């Protein structure tokens, strides 16, 4: 292990030195060595065991304000020598941009998280146990694809300002995709996943897996809502990204630089209902699968994106920050933790006169101002405070920026995905239409 680390560090340093010797004004090297062990279930059977080794080397240079980047998965001397020459050519061909830069010097640091070796026998036993439990508890379920993997990596980030970060990680990931069937009827597929630092728990008890399996069995027979109405939508944790991806995209580099973000000038303003507080916590202990170093070479820190409805900052990289004159984010997003609310999920459901429990949204990308529409998948009609029946061919539409301001409740219960911790969030005023 330490012999490997010494060799890795030498490789990263040698690359960086070569870039500077070749005439770069500023240079960055990212080297990662990874090993992944992956067991796969296909159509209900444990079928495939994969072992993959990989190397990832990223070199960036800035010369006369022109930036070039090259990525390769080799780290031998000849490959590095060629990559150094190529990346200088790439930079020479670029258009100059004063906003290009590298991270300033920070105290060198080493980060460790998770186990260093996989337990293949335990992985097999957990997976076999999962298949047996699903078969017993939910006999109508077809396990289309299930993956349990362990990835360990050594990653090194260095730049010509003296940045020197080393990260050593090991993480288990579990993903299940499935549907339920009876006779010639099938449910929509559903899927979820979770990241873990150990295999202490049964896989079916991780994240939202057991709940989704149960729901799939309920969703073999569905029907659309009748007509069209404006109602409440309770967004389940697994549908969080479908609804909130618009916000995270709109506060990141692309839309802010291209001037198409509706949030670019909203820092310090109320953009959601005051019930919502939302963090990005990549280095928190509660997040199993975060990150320690950002893509532009900064030690990541936890941050609050929305505090009681107020936008606290944008998710800009160093380049985005210099390009727009706005503050650089202390992390690169993800690792989302939403503060729990005051209501139970059953209270949220009881408060809905007519609406939907939205468990997955199959929708087109919202436009720049948040208009969206999509199909409610794996979801339920709520009427008179009760869940009535699972839905098909039912669409939801509205404006996400408006919806964020119409949060009517947040659940106390949250799902821990390892990479995020999320509650159920209820919105009012969305259009729901059936056939």
């Amino acid at each position, binding site marked *: 292990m330490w012999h490997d680390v010494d060799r890795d560090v030498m490789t990263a340093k040698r690359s960086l030195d070569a870039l500077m010797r070749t005439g770069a004004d500023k240079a960055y090297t990212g080297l990662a060595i990874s090993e992944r062990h992956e067991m796969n279930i*296909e159509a209900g059977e*444990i079928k*495939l*065991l*994969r*072992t*993959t*080794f*990989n*190397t990832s080397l990223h070199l960036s240079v800035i010369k006369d304000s022109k930036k070039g*980047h*090259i*990525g390769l*998965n*080799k780290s031998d001397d000849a490959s590095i020598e060629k990559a150094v020459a*190529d*990346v200088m*050519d*790439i930079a*020479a*061909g*670029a*258009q100059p941009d004063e*906003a290009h830069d590298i991270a300033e010097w920070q105290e060198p640091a080493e980060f460790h998280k998770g186990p260093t070796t996989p337990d*293949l026998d335990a992985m*097999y036993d957990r997976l076999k146990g999962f298949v047996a439990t699903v078969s017993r508890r939910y006999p109508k379920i*077809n396990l*289309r694809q299930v993956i349990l993997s362990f990835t360990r990596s050594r990653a090194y980030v260095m730049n010509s300002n003296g940045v020197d970060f080393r990260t050593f990680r090991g993480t288990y990931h579990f993903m299940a995709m*499935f*549907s*339920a069937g009876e006779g*010639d009827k*099938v*449910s*929509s*597929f559903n899927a979820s996943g979770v990241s873990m630092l150990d295999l202490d728990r049964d896989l079916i008890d991780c994240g939202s897996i057991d709940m989704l399996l149960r729901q799939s069995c309920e969703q073999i027979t569905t029907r659309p809502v009748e007509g*069209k109405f404006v109602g409440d939508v309770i967004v389940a944790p697994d549908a969080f990204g479908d609804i909130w991806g618009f916000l995270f995209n709109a506060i990141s580099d*692309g839309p802010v*630089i*291209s*001037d*198409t973000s*509706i949030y670019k000038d909203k820092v310090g303003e109320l953009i959601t209902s005051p019930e919502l507080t939302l963090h990005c916590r990549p280095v928190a202990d509660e997040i199993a699968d975060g990150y320690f170093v950002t893509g532009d070479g900064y030690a990541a820190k936890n941050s609050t994106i929305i505090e009681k409805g107020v936008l606290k900052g944008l998710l800009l990289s160093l*380049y985005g920050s210099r390009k727009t004159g706005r503050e650089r984010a202390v992390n690169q997003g993800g690792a989302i933790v939403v503060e729990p609310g005051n209501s139970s999920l059953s209270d949220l459901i009881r408060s809905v006169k007519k609406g939907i429990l939205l468990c997955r949204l*199959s*929708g*087109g*990308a919202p*436009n*720049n101002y948040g*208009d*969206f*529409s999509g*199909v409610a*998948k794996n979801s339920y009609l709520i009427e008179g405070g009760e869940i009535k029946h699972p839905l*098909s061919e039912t*669409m939801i*539409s509205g404006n996400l920026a408006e919806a964020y301001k119409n949060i009517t409740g947040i659940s106390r219960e949250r799902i821990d995905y390892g990479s995020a911790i999320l509650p159920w969030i209820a919105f009012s005023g969305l*259009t729901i*239409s059936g056939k």
Partner: protein
Amino acid sequence: MVDLQEYSRLFSAYTELRVQENRSVTVGFIKGNNTVNTRSTTGGVSARVYKNGSWGFASTPELQRDAIVSIVKAATDNAEFLGSRTGVAKGPLPTVAASHDSSFATKKPRLTQKQLVDFIKEIDDHIATRYPGLQSRSVFLNCLDIEKSVVTSDGSRFTSMTPRSHIFITLCVEKDGEPVDLYQVHGGLGQFEDVFESPDVLFPEIEKQYEHLMRKSEGVYPDAGLKTCVLDAELAGILAHEAIGHTTEADIVLGGSVAQHLIGQEVASPLVTLVDFANTAFGQTCPVPVYVDDEGTKAEDVVIIDKGVLKGYMHNKETANHFNAAPTGNARAYTFSDEPLIRMRNTAILPGTSKLEDMIASVDDGYYLIRSKNGQADSTSEFMFGIELGYEIKNGKLGRAIKNTTISGVAYDVLKTVSMVSDEMHWTGAGMCGKKQPIPVGMGGPAVKCRLSIGGR
């Protein structure tokens, strides 16, 4: 590429050995800023072994002899590890031997990175100069070469070099304080030098894109509900791929797709014939030509729907065994470290006899939908496509443009409502399909008139 034949003596069970390199170039300008300027290469060797019903896989980026030997051993050990625990013994896979070499590499001198950047900048400068009222614009070049060499223990061998090159242009205008945008993709099969002659060749297409954008900026919300729509060719291709194609991939059939009960049944209008082409259609090379798949099977066209009747599934060797069918050559892997999965290649609805203008003229109240930004479907064949560009049809004539929306339906129901199919065929090859791994796919079709649900307000 490394000569793999000498390693075949190491094979102790059914084995595929593959060397592969994916090379990509990305150049991007956002509002005149050269934000992306990068090249990347990912390559290595992998082995996959099948023994008594269990699969083992291993890969490494190293291409030295000892690395290749160790990868074959690791994949064999993995198959044995699983086999020793599952205790499930299954018969051998079908034996097929194929041999082929194909390369779509350019014979022209390669452009330098600077020439590529200058090419994209010239397009960006043209847009900035000609359309000064735009709020924003972006121009991105993405080129991907996939080069591989495969040998299998049952005697197949092939090499291939399949490149594609695309330029993505997004124009954005501000309307009443809100940004409205529209994207367009140019390019297809081949390396940059063979696909793009000069920037000015694209200018007429950019002019059309701008005109559509101006109409879209005045666009209206569609009237939500079940409507008669004419789907332009691009959308028909996505319908073929997402909504029907995925349900007929044999691994998804085994995973519970609705198509498992529909073989031999009428699932669409008799006007609909749907084919997954291996490499050639109507005498032309398809956007993603596959001659031999990554299991070493000669790639054959798969007729999925013939005149409205569901005829067949797409197979790899293992599902072909299960269904007592022949492997169809659909097993493909995206990178060297990926195992082959059942993937579509070039999926298309075949053209009919109607004229697009007659199809539009036949609609009293509906929509002409032209471009999609994304699409999803599931095991029930219920699908959703995001619509980026479309127009109202009122009394047989095109009306106002519509704002971004979503269309949806159950594909096997929607295809039964198809009442007209145009005589023009249009292919797109910019798609990247996601299913554990991403992979380039081709999609094609004529315009199709049908009834489906459209979102709105």
